[in-house]
């Protein structure tokens, strides 16, 4: 049984205030650092891919999970980041410059899209962002001179300060490092004024205005940050796939990203990571179990989409707070042992003596 017992405001600020939490993250860090030396080539590549998807998922989480704005078009920001980065590398720009510039470029596009998009919300916003993704895919497919069109475009190796990081392990560490940086930056941002304002805009615009939060400004800011982070994911993805084609950034990717943040648990960075790992692993998992399935099932076209949909439905029905919600319950179970009650997380209906007294 554990009680939070703050003796100073700094106690409440600490990210990992208990030794057990610090130890757990230290073990995780060691495992991730050691993994490329213990795992086979294929899995190192897969994990690198998961790191990149984690960055993409974090990007969308800022927009969808924290400010409550849906986007069905985030594949476009990844595509723009990937193509901008590949193009700049092709023009001879160094990697260390091209990455921030690609992020800046997608952030700028995020601003351009965000300014009109924040006028609408819900289904309309979903449609606007979807249209943006389709348009982007179309432009990339037809602007042969810059993007190579449907013939594709090759991506130069990532060379950072003279070191070629295109090898399996170096690129793994590069992606892990950048993911860590993005995650820490977002953790900080989400626990300060900006993150609070985002959540305020999401939960009540009326109250947000009343407390001095410039609602439209923060909505656009969420678009900009989200697009910039997604651009980074795109740029790294470019190196991972080594050859860019417009189809690589289609609506299926946009859908995967939405699933990651929804299943992971909206409004939580940890959830974005959980979701990205689960959804990112799913295609591999499905292809692994395919041979074990009866012929009629495994031959079905669209098996992946079906499984994705099924998982989404199951989560919406049984765990709307996503994997992160499950995680918190599990943790609470151990921390409050043996006092955990099954209905501890049921939305409290605590009535006062005379609720709604008239």
């Amino acid at each position, binding site marked *: 049984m554990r009680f939070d017992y703050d003796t100073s*405001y700094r106690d409440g600020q600490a990210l990992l205030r208990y030794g057990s939490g610090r130890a757990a993250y230290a073990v995780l860090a060691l495992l991730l650092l050691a993994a490329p030396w213990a795992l086979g080539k294929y899995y190192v590549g897969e994990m690198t891919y998961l790191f990149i998807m984690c960055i993409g998922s974090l990007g969308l989480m800022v927009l969808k999970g924290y400010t409550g704005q849906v986007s069905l078009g985030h594949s476009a920001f990844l595509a723009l980041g990937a193509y901008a980065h590949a193009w700049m590398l092709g023009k001879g720009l160094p990697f260390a410059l091209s990455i921030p510039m690609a992020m800046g470029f997608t952030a700028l596009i995020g601003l351009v899209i965000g300014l009109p998009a924040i006028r609408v919300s819900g289904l309309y916003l979903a449609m606007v962002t979807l249209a943006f993704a389709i348009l982007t895919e179309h432009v990339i497919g037809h602007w042969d001179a810059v993007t190579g069109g449907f013939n594709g475009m090759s991506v130069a190796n990532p060379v950072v300060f003279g070191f070629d990081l295109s090898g399996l392990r170096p690129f793994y560490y590069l992606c892990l490092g950048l993911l860590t940086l993005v995650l820490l930056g977002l953790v*900080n*941002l989400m626990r*300060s004024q900006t993150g609070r304002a985002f959540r305020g805009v999401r939960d009540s615009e009326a109250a*947000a205005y009343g*407390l*001095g*939060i*410039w609602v439209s400004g923060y909505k656009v800011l969420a678009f900009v940050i989200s697009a910039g982070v997604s651009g980074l994911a795109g740029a790294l993805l470019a190196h991972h796939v080594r050859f860019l084609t417009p189809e690589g950034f289609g609506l299926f990717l946009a859908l995967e990203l939405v699933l990651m943040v929804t299943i992971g648990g909206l409004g939580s960075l940890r959830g974005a990571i959980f979701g990205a790992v689960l959804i990112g692993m799913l295609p591999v998992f499905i292809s692994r179990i395919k041979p074990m399935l009866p012929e009629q099932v495994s031959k079905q076209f669209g098996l992946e989409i079906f499984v994705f949909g099924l998982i989404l439905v199951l989560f919406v029905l049984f765990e709307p707070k996503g994997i992160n919600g499950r995680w918190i319950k599990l943790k609470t179970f151990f921390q409050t042992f043996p006092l955990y009650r099954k209905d501890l997380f049921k939305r409290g209906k605590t*009535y006062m003596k005379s609720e709604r007294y008239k």
Partner: protein
Amino acid sequence: MTMFSVRNLSLRFGGVQAIADLSFEVAQGEVFAIIGPNGAGKTSVLNVITRVFDPSAGSVHFEGRDITQLARHRVVNAGIARTFQNIELFEGGTVLENLLLGRHRFGHGNFFAQWLWTPGVRAAEAASQAAVEQVIELLDLAPHRKSPVAGLPYGVRKVVELARALAARPRLLLLDEPSSGLNPEETRDLAFWIDDIQNDLGVTVIMVEHDMSLVSEAADRVLCMNLGQRLALGTPAEVQSNPAVIAAYLGA
């Protein structure tokens, strides 16, 4: 001394005249109540003051300044905070997080400092928490500090909303039916708190209220509205005994 005034204010929604040529003044340090039957336009007055709606005519003045054209998110910086008739809390957060949002208008470091969680940002966050603790103390919210607001009883949620408005350190506080849905015990607490807010914090209060006993107890003056117009204005006793007011309430 007049701190706040509304001059010849009108607001139309299509065919509905929600506010019709309304004028009144509120003195520094006063608790000013607005009463009136349902649909009289009371909430609309607060909404025009906080710039939710543009008035069709008239003006709003606060501390010698015309705030009729102020941007909606700048109203609190001018010194005016409010609560809502239908509670508007940040449902995803705890009581503490809701109150910290009340401190939004105070500096918490620039964007990049926040990104890096610099010592300056940490100090500003701690200062905001300290300020919020004072409000928690004042309104007896300590037992709920870390509770998610979504699960709190209705009465406590109303207090959290009041606390959040106070965390913004307003000089003028607008309350929209603060006692609706409260039990008699909670309403009595509320009367004491309004008294504290007026006398200890020196905050001027405009409150829309249905409960006449609370109005009599807490308010210095009362404005009674009907159909967007001013029906009567005076001390609680004067307004309550005004024949036009009685007629309006009896459903004329």
